[in-house]
């Protein structure tokens, strides 16, 4: 018995010895929302994307830099040719070739149970994808489609061989491609059998709770990341996440609150990193003359149909107070419907805060006695969302508007929003696809051929804005495209079919001995961290 005890002790000390250096190279990250699946196709939320980014890669990187494609150009107004990177292998050993791109496009276009994938609709104008040779792919489109590379940033490349697909693949627009039986199911991804990518990490396990373990892909074509093992845990509770960091359970936690940063700042063992983000927070106003949900005026009209009323609502808001008091500076006051600091965003003057002028505008529009408005805000979606909503309620009450603030869970909010029941609601919109993403989606008239107005809840309809947007949608020249964005943006800010509020900054709290360079998309990935 004594001997076995000593053996056990020896074993224990051995394993302790083995474990400690290994754990030093393990990176433990806590996400704020659980990734839905290891399947990179159906879900567009940030965390599912962050997780997938470890394992899968795209032709074009999120930063517009070459990734699996090394170069691309238009060889005719309706076809773009990509040169693919050579010497890249999938984690199952299969070489990455043009066929894999065709296969991935087929899968992207294929709707399982009628459900679109991340960019199924956005890639609708693509009529054909042809593997010219092993390392050349041609995308053909109905009309000039200049923003195709922006959309292809969301096409994660899968391995055709891993799915058991052999020979040439013929693309068709509904993604059938004769491959329907070969497409792996979501379960195949979650168990790992189909989760074969070219990325720097390989799945070890994925749990339905959103927890995932990853190991380094030792055959990765690019620079090997520092961490040979990554453990991702999903901790939706803000306090629990930061407490986990302080307790040493995690190395990096995403989205600490402004309050959490106060704790981090006082502790020399921890630090935080921030980067101005790509999300614009704004309030959508229903400008429809027939009335807007929850908005009532004495004379039965919809006050929000009047541009002066919308400008007054904007002018009553003190954006600096919101970003300074509620975000402790970790947000930037908005001046337009895209982060003013992002590439391609036009230069715009700051928005004015002037309560007296706002009151005068309201009176001029015939609403000197105000009107009643219901402001809808998701309770659990945006950082400080309910606080910001309360601040806006204060400002608008001071303007003389009778505001009822309605907060509800995201799922309920989403349903009511889709049904068009909201005359005024707060929303956040990311811009990974360029500075015109918000205005082209939320304010343009719906046009599926041009990919415009998919979420126009404002019912905004301005001929000048419309003209600029439609010209932008088919403009191939980058300089002219930027001019058109500026034109449309100026028109939208002048008319205010929505009210820009602020741009969220992305935040991470982490161990002080880790150096972190986060991307503006706010994705939490192991490759952005290295030890000091």
């Amino acid at each position: 018995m004594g001997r076995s005890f000593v053996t056990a002790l020896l074993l224990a000390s051995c394993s302790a010895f083995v474990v400690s250096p290994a754990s030093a190279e393990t990176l433990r990250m806590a996400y704020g929302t659980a990734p839905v699946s290891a399947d990179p196709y159906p879900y567009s939320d940030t965390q599912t994307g962050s997780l997938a980014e470890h394992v899968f890669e795209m032709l074009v990187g999120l930063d517009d830099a070459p990734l699996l494609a090394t170069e691309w150009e238009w060889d005719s107004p309706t076809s773009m040719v990509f040169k693919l990177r050579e010497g890249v292998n999938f984690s199952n050993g299969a070489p990455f070739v043009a066929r894999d791109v065709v296969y991935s496009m087929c899968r992207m276009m294929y709707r399982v149970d009628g459900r679109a994938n991340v960019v199924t609709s956005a890639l609708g104008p693509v009529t054909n994808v042809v593997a010219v040779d092993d390392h050349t792919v041609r995308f053909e489109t109905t009309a000039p489609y200049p923003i195709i590379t922006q959309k292809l940033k969301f096409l994660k490349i899968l391995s055709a061989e891993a799915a058991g697909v052999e020979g040439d693949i013929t693309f068709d627009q509904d993604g059938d491609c004769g491959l329907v039986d070969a497409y792996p199911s979501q379960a195949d991804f979650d168990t790992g059998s189909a989760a074969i990518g070219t990325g720097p990490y390989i799945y070890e396990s994925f749990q339905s709770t959103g927890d995932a373990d990853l190991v380094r892909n030792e055959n990765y074509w690019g620079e090997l990341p520092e961490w040979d093992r990554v453990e991702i845990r999903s901790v939706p509770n803000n306090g629990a996440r930061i407490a986990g960091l302080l307790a040493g359970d995690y190395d990096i936690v995403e989205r600490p609150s402004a309050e959490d940063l106060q704790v981090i700042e006082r502790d020399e063992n921890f630090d935080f990193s921030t980067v101005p983000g790509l999300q614009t927070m704004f309030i959508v106003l229903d400008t429809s003359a027939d009335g807007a949900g929850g908005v009532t005026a004495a004379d039965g009209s919809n006050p929000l149909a009047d541009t002066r009323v919308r400008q007054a609502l904007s002018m009553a808001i003190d954006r600096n107070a919101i970003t300074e008091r509620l975000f402790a500076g970790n947000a930037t006051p908005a001046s337009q419907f895209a982060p003013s600091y992002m590439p391609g965003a036009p230069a715009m003057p700051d928005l004015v805060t002037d309560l007296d002028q706002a009151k005068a505008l309201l009176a001029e529009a015939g609403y000197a006695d105000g009107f009643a408005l219901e402001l809808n805000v998701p309770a659990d979606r945006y950082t400080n969302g309910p606080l910001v909503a309360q601040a806006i309620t204060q400002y608008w009450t001071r303007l003389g508007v009778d505001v009822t603030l309605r907060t509800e869970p995201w799922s309920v909010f989403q349903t009511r929003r889709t049904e068009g029941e909201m005359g005024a609601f707060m929303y956040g919109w990311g811009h990974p696809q360029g500075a015109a993403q918000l205005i082209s989606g939320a304010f343009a008239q719906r046009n599926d051929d041009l990919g415009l107005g998919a979420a126009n809840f404002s019912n905004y309809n301005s001929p000048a804005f419309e003209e600029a947007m439609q010209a932008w949608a088919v403009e191939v020249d980058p300089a002219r495209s930027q001019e058109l964005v500026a034109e449309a943006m100026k028109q939208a800010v002048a008319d205010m079919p929505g009210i820009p509020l602020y741009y969220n900054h992305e935040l991470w709290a982490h161990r002080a001995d880790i150096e972190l360079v986060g991307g503006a998309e706010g994705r939490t990935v192991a490759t952005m961290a290295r030890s000091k």
Partner: protein
Amino acid sequence: MSASMSEPGLRRLEPFRAIFRGYPAAAAGLVGVVICALIALLAPVLAPQNPFNQNELDIMNGLLPPMGEMMDGSVSLLGTDAVGRDILSAVMYGMRTSLLVAILSVSIGMVVGVVLGLVATMRGGWVDAIIMRAVDLTVSFPGVLLALMLLAVFGSGVDKVIFALAIGIWAQNARLVRAVGLSEMKKDYIAAARIGGISDLRIMFHFLLPNAISPVLVILPMAISGAIVAEATLSFLGVGVPITEPSLGLLISNGNDYLLSGRWWISVVPGLVLVLMVLSINVVADRLRDHANPYLQAKG
């Protein structure tokens, strides 16, 4: 002393005083209940700020510590929360909401429960079966879970919270009244009344009700404190009252995010008040129950 006993007002209070004489904890609880009720009633007069009036709030006054100075030069005794609500005022108004919700939901639950319990007793048969199965169904859900489900369907708001809590409360009252009522039904006076041709309705409300109501009245204060806690739980979970009109539970929930960073007053103050209020009611309720139970009384 005998002079004061002859005062008619005091004499009427005498049995009530007797209940608490010799029970200092219960007496202190009673004082607590009275203070809470007074603060809740007089909040608009007492509170330095109306925290429900958006015109009186300003985020520039946000997160002031206790004794912090507001922009208009006044002093916030217990500090402010992130949107500039004065915590002292918010707690006073929050008590108002908490008590209002609790008293109304318990009253509705009690009236509905007692009436249905009496109907089940009188009618018997399938009416009894239907009512009692509905009771079984209702009590088989945990109260807060039931309220959560109802609020998810009907949306949030003070009126809906009252309704959701009342649904959890009626069932226990109905069951209690029926249990007592059934034993009363066997007694001679009911039989006599029936033979005398007195209508069912009259028997129900004039004979049965006075004799079956006392156990319901005994659990009443306990039900109120339970409803206060349930409302706080719902608001803490974010499905209760609107965020612009916080109750105690919502104030605690709001302050939760600020605890780690040392801004304790936002949740600790409403938390303490909630504890004291519920404790006071419970102590009083305990005493009332003991008093009403002759067995316990005999044991002393």
